[in-house]
């Protein structure tokens, strides 16, 4: 119970910070907007993109938006503030709050990106509700997998380059499942939920491992 309350306060704090210094939020929105627009400019003459290319581009945009958004979740905390949290909450609450916050942030960001992308580049998706579900699961998967990585990268010297290097191997299993599930929803074929179960399972596993490992990271 105590843990839940701590998580709740930390999340509130994160949202409030995000809202007050809107630079980061606006930066992410602008990032998504400009990548989508660049794609539009490069493909506007070719007519409707073939479905696999459409799918691949969307996931590239979502992946990099996720890495940028999650990457700063620990970087923005100053050393003094981290020490202050150290006296107030337990590490498990800290990592779970960060994961929950990133999940919500990425859910909003990915759905927005998908909307903008579908409007600008056309929407060849046959089974839209399922595709949206896949995008949402993707946001959850990216947020869970990348949160601990961003905590690790924040401790190292050149954390901006380190973030993608450390993140990619962990994200690739999730990405493979996502692209398969997304392709199925895109074609409106093969409604087997197996990749979705795999995604949910992977996210749970990653959250559990983060929960166990973060206390060790926190102490340094």
């Amino acid at each position, binding site marked *: 119970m105590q843990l839940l309350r701590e998580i709740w306060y930390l999340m509130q704090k994160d949202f409030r910070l995000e809202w007050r210094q809107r630079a980061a939020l606006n930066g992410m929105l602008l990032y998504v907007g400009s990548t989508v627009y660049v794609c539009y400019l490069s493909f506007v003459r070719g007519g409707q993109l073939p479905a696999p290319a459409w799918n691949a581009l969307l996931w590239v945009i979502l992946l990099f938006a996720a890495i940028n958004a999650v990457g700063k979740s620990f970087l923005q905390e100053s050393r003094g503030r981290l020490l202050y949290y150290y006296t107030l909450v337990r590490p498990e609450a800290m990592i779970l709050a960060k994961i929950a916050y990133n999940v919500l942030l990425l859910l909003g960001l990915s759905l927005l990106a998908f909307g903008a992308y579908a409007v600008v580049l056309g929407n060849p998706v046959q089974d839209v509700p399922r595709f949206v579900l896949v995008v949402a699961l993707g946001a959850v998967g990216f947020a869970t997998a990348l949160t601990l*990585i961003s905590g690790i990268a924040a401790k190292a010297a050149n954390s901006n380059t*380190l973030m993608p290097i450390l993140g990619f*191997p*962990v994200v*690739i299993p999730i990405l493979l499942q996502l692209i398969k599930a997304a392709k199925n929803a895109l074609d409106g074929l093969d409604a087997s939920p197996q990749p979705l179960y795999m995604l949910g399972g992977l996210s749970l*596993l990653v959250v559990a491992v983060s929960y166990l*490992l973060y206390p*060790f990271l926190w102490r340094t």
Partner: protein
Amino acid sequence: MKNAWWKVLTVVLLLYTVVMGLLGHAPRLAILNETIRNLYFHVPMWFGMTIILFASVVYSVRYLRKPSDRLDVLAHHTAVTGIVMACLGLATGSIWARYTWGTWWTADPRLNGAAVAVMIYGAYLVLRSSITDEQQRARISAVYNIFAFCAAIPLLFILPRLTDSLHPGAGGNPGFSKYDLDNNMRLVFYPAVIAWTLLGVWITNVSVRLALVKHKLYEKQLA
């Protein structure tokens, strides 16, 4: 010399693997033909790599439970040996694929898994080199080692079994064990697994001892 019996065993088994692997009897099968002999080199290298990388994770867990310099050095050097064996496994597999599938590389689940495993430990080494404080480096890289291993295991071991794959042992392609492994091949295959794993252990052993000696020398210079 008393503790060197396993090194002798490694050399004997490796010699046996190479000689019997190249000269021994192998069943004649379409497409595979003589390339089936790769079973003695490629497969045991991956076995050895998996065992050694698992050892690296175990050392990382032990480090987090009870930090010590030695465990950190062990985790680091087992990871390096694992990368060397992964590269050997990739090379042998790639050459084999060239002559049986007609291509060096395909986007196969098992091959993706191999690539990801190599990437994880590459990232692990980059992470190590970008933290200067020794204790911090040991702790943070241990955390990453465990996290990445847990997140990638589904890819390496579960995904290839769920999807179609060109690789033997998945997607309707029978594994070697189904019909290729007659008892003649088993006689070489099992010793080969032991031999390549022991070779990995030996390499790690030497590099860990070198690293520990260097540490000691460094401390003496400081003193």
